[in-house]
């Protein structure tokens, strides 16, 4: 199983543009602490537009979904937004079974995600 990893791609233009976060492996009660820490660091840099790439994530638990909900709440309080990009089939199924495909903005195309975030 692929180990947990987070990669952040920060735009050269700074916090006015979207930051892209690629998560791989599994996001559960063990790994979520590292995810939350990274998100806090990006929020401190004043980013308010997030693309969360879940194409390499093969599992997400309630802890991971909760962390995404907290991030979304924090961004919307700052007039920001978050798009989930290309969730893997398994992660999409988890989100769909629980009804989160109606709560999160989910896009399959990076350009479309960028367009949504403006």
């Amino acid at each position, binding site marked *: 199983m692929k180990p947990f990893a987070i990669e952040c791609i920060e735009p050269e233009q700074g916090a006015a543009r979207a930051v892209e976060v690629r998560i791989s492996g599994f996001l559960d009660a063990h790994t979520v602490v590292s995810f939350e820490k990274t998100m806090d660091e990006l929020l401190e840099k004043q980013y308010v537009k997030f693309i969360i790439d879940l194409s390499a994530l093969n599992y997400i638990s309630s802890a991971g979904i*909760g962390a995404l909900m907290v991030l979304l709440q924090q961004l919307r309080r700052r007039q920001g937004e978050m798009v989930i990009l290309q969730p893997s089939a398994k992660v999409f199924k*988890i989100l769909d079974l*629980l009804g*989160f495909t109606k709560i999160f903005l989910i896009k399959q195309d990076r350009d479309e995600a960028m367009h949504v975030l403006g």
Partner: protein
Amino acid sequence: MPIPALEPNLADPLQFEITCPAEVQVLSMVRRFIVGVAEEVGFDEDDLLKIEMAVDEACSNALIHGSPKKEPGERVEVDITILIEPQMLTIQIRDHGTDRPVDQFKGAGTILEYAAPDRSDYGGLGILIMKQFMDEVEFLAIPETGTMVTLRKMRKGADGVLYQTESSPVNP
């Protein structure tokens, strides 16, 4: 030639006992072991995902909230029992936490309730997942001992029809 899944009319129940350290690092290993067992006894892909998630949530609660503070060098453990019977798979998770909140088993009522934008925290989804994805869930808080969560998933008979639970209708 693939090895066939264990038949639902298995004559004797099969039981596994796992004792693991109360550390979240073991979560992925526990998930994979139990999903492996469930796959061996014939659960389909949809049910495997639901079992994986429900087990993960029950174990996460046991490992995080159900583990008393350790003294240096002390080992705190969580006990997991897996019982395979002809009609059902039962997974029981026992922890040793005695100071868990009284509303620990309440959980979110619905996803819309959970996802309300004015919430101060996003806890409670794990309980909802267990209840939504398993056919039976029982929570038992044992004073001065800990908490026991029992998860049951019904198996299909040889005719492909789900066995029924005695206490409640089977989830669709």
